[in-house]
């Protein structure tokens, strides 16, 4: 049996008859084992942290399922590489390995003394090295450096589990909630939408700038789903025409303005609570739209938030047909059944075919993530807007 086979089967390298080499070989083997154990320990921690960070990023950014998978895999792989490099970087030296072995197995300095006096020629040193080599040869690397789970492993696993659940929950909710409309994969959007999206009204309304022409307008617009041609949304964007818009223009919290969401949003107060930053408003708006939209009953839910008290001037209820947008991240662009009738003429067959074709192309574009999530409501709104009366 070769020497390597022997060491693989039982313990460290078999004695070669040269104690100096035996000691060093055995300690090298132990050192390799130490590096491996350290790498695994670090990897467990690092991968858990990497996955949580990747999932957190996916939640925050609202990436597609595929992108999330890539992100999480990349995070885990990167963490694995970092852990391995860190383990190699922090690998014990041979003398440290010997000291660790002595300490862990109660060897009374046999290994470290043998290593130190390896190469010495006097009789006592030879005896020291011989004894050390014999002891090292009898040992098993797993005894010296057993694998131990990190003490905080349960917490790490809980973190990974929580982040994964949150992420998957968002997907599942989006998928189940919207057969035809946007199954927003974004758990972030789901979460945000549920809790109260830092939504269009949050971003847009909280912005005190009259007219909300800047980010708040963008936020509001971004939140406007197909049905958002409705007065409130428009007014919100323009900052003047409705009480809600007044409220926003005067810097009152959106929550202060009773908003009636037609076309099915979730609770109105879910879409109002805080002023999000303008940059996030669009996403959040779409999030709110996606999540809440499908859950609302046809015909819309009148969700009224606390009104007036804080805003002062927001006493009136505003009819805001915020049929919230769909088509976020791979979702289908489902027609909104709750739209009001209008007087536009019906399409001709050619127009209908053209419309259908463009609709399908848009749907495919959304499905392939070619359209940024923040702009998807616009796509849907556009198609809804150009529908003929007969299609509604």
């Amino acid at each position, binding site marked *: 049996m070769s020497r390597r086979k022997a060491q693989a089967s039982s313990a460290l390298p078999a004695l070669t008859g040269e104690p100096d080499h035996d000691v060093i070989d055995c300690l090298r083997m132990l050192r390799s084992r130490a590096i491996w154990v350290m790498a695994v320990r670090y990897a467990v921690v690092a991968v858990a942290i990497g996955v949580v960070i990747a999932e957190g990023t996916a939640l925050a950014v609202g990436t597609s399922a595929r992108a999330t998978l890539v992100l999480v895999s990349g995070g885990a792989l990167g963490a694995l590489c970092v852990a391995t490099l860190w383990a190699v970087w922090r690998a014990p030296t041979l003398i440290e390995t010997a000291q660790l072995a002595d300490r862990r197995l109660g060897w009374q*300095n046999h290994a*470290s003394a043998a290593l130190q006096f390896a190469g010495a020629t006097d009789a006592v040193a030879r005896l020291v090295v011989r*004894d050390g080599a014999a002891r090292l040869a009898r040992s098993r690397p797993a005894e010296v450096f057993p694998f131990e789970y990190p003490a905080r492993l349960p917490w790490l696993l809980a973190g990974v589990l929580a982040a994964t659940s949150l992420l998957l929950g968002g997907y599942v909710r989006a998928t189940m909630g919207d057969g035809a409309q946007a199954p927003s994969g974004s758990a972030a959007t789901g979460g945000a939408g549920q809790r109260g999206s830092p939504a269009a009204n949050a971003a847009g309304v909280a912005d005190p700038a009259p007219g909300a022409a800047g980010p708040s307008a963008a936020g509001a617009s971004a939140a406007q789903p197909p049905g958002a041609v409705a007065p409130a949304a428009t007014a919100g964007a323009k900052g003047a025409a409705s009480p809600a818009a007044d409220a926003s223009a005067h810097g009152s919290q959106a929550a202060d303005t009773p908003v009636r969401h037609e076309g099915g949003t979730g609770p109105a107060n879910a879409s109002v609570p805080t002023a999000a930053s303008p940059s996030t408003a669009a996403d959040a708006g779409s999030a709110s739209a996606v999540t809440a939209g499908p859950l609302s009953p046809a015909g819309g839910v009148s969700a009224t938030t606390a009104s007036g008290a804080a805003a002062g001037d927001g006493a009136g209820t505003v009819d805001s047909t915020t049929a919230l947008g769909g088509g976020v991240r791979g979702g289908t662009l489902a027609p909104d059944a709750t739209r009001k009738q209008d007087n536009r003429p019906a399409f001709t067959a050619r127009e209908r075919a053209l419309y259908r074709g463009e609709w399908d192309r848009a749907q495919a574009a959304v499905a392939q993530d070619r359209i940024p999530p923040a702009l998807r409501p616009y796509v849907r709104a556009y198609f809804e807007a150009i529908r003929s009366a007969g299609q509604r």
Partner: protein
Amino acid sequence: MIPTPASVEAQAAQFRECFTHLRTEIGRVFVGQNSLVDHLLICFFCQGHALIEGPPGLGKTLLVRTLSDAVSLSFARVQCTPDLMPADVTGTNLLIETAPGLREFAFQRGPIFANVVLADEINRATPRTQAAFLEAMQERRVTVFGITHRIDEPFSVFATQNPIEMEGTYPLPEAQLDRFFFKLIVQVPGLEDLAEIMARTTGDREARVTPRFGAETVRAMAGLVKQVKIDDQATRLALRFVRATHPEAQESPDVVKQYVRYGASPRGAQAMILAAKALALLAGRFHVSMDDLRTVAPPALSHRIIRNFQGEMEHVAPDSIVARIVAETRDG
């Protein structure tokens, strides 16, 4: 002749045999106190000197005499009193008649030239006489009238002192305490040991010690002890122990900073390492382990620690300080 591993192993086996023989022989006469006996023998094989402290009647003198009897070495006992003169210890020049009508001074060796010297109640001797003892202990030679006389090896001085009666005594100065390899405390025996002592000493049978090894063997054993290896990690631990006895050292524990005035000298580290080497040989090793050092730290360091006023007032035992140092010093 260059020693081979086999010859060293044979010597180590002889060392263990010799040690066991002495322990057994002493055990025939001296009851119990195994740790004390082991430390005394280690000190003897390291060719150090020991200060044995204990109340009267506990067999301190008997212990040392039995040791010398068991190894066929010359033994001398000096009962220290305030009127003991240095010449009584070292010897002096006497005018003797070498031939009819011809007289000349000849050096008459004192008891210090024995292989094993028992200085009984050394703290009753005057500082001048103590100094004569301690110079001989350190230098292993005596200078009388300008002529230096070497003391034959093996040479060990075992001094005793009584911690109770302090009146009329001259406590050993710290510098002289430092020259003792170990300070050993004789404990009051327990009930079982006392019963055994009564049985042995009040009956008609007298225990006899069989001498077996001579001075040559002891010298060889002392040389073997010095050959034992110590690695850097263990050396650093010994030095850290010594450093930790100094209150001004950063690594010293709080108890040292609070109760210690002066710490151990490098002699403390030397004593620890040599004694640890002897322990390693006894354990069948040819190198010192850190556990060896921990075992020998209390007898090697406790008498080298000088307590401050607070420590003396609160009766903080040096042994407890050393124990704390040993417990708190990392292997690293």
